[in-house]
């Protein structure tokens, strides 16, 4: 048993020596480089995506968007604040500017109406009372005013005479009315 074991050890030693004599062949250099590069790439962090990667492309596209946005904004804004030369009808009413060729230019009617509406509303209340102002405007004194009222009655304008008489009484509440004008 031990002799067999010793023989086995001798055989193993001979084989080991014979194997050790074999050339120490090594992998080609290119293979080494390929593997080492692969190993390094595997642990390298992937290049972070630069927020401004392709910088000039980004800059150009951003600029283009900006120009486009400004253009759209301008287009939308033009009707609201029209240039004087484009929409002369919107200009302040100056007679000298109302040349015939400018009148021919179509004016943005809705905008003009919208913008002019408040002006109309302000003017109308002042213009409306004009007839009443005429009626209520007292003559030089109470006697003259009463004479005017008599004249209205004589000419058959009873309603107007009544309105003037009411206005007279409001203006002169303490004045004693003559008998012919008392209600």
């Amino acid at each position, binding site marked *: 048993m031990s002799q067999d074991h010793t023989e086995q050890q001798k055989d193993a030693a001979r084989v080991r020596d014979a*194997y050790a004599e074999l050339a120490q062949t090594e992998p080609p250099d290119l293979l080494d480089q390929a593997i080492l590069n*692969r*190993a390094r790439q595997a*642990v390298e962090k992937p290049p972070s995506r630069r927020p401004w990667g392709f910088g000039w492309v980004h800059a150009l596209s951003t600029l283009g968007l900006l120009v486009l946005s400004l253009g759209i904004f301008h287009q939308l804004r033009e009707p609201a604040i029209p240039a004087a030369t484009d929409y002369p009808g919107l200009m302040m009413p100056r007679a000298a500017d109302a040349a015939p060729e400018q009148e021919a230019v179509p004016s943005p009617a809705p905008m003009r109406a919208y913008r002019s509406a408040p002006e109309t509303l302000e003017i109308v209340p002042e213009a409306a009372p004009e007839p009443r102002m005429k009626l209520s405007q007292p003559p030089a004194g109470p006697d003259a005013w009463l004479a005017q009222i008599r004249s209205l009655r004589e000419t058959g304008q009873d309603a107007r005479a009544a309105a003037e008489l009411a206005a007279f009484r409001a203006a002169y509440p303490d004045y004693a009315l003559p008998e012919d004008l008392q209600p």
Partner: protein
Amino acid sequence: MSDSSDEALMQRYGQGDADAFTVLYERYRGPLYRYFLRQLGDPVQANDLYQGCWEKVIGARQRFREKTPFRAWLFRIAHNHLVDFFRAHRKPQTLPDALEDEQGKAPEAQLEDEQRQARFRQALLALPEEQRDALLLQLEAGLSLEHIAQVTGVGRETVKSRLRYGTRKLKQELAP
């Protein structure tokens, strides 16, 4: 870093230290390459399997645990890679005589050495696959019986038996 253990280097590589891999690679490039070369007898196929084996190592870098013996771990990957190859392809072929040249010897002595070594390589290739694998894991990789058993997935006694039969056949080729 060159004093670090294989296991520590592999662990560091798993954590992203590429230089640790370079040191480790330098230690094992020769033995691993010859393991494939002498299993296959074809340098082209050996190159492919050698590269493929390292790629598996690279891919498994984060699964490596420092308590695992690196040498056994590496050759286990190599062994499995080789078994897969044999399953998918073919048995090893005879090794060309001029494959592994020796240099720097007198022509006659060199010729005699070359002839002896060629016979030895042929005998190695002629061994049954399991015996050759066990012998190369011992002679080239330097693994212990226990580690060979772990790498090949068989018992320790089976490994001893394979080594014994393989050694006996090779000795016959070495006889004058």
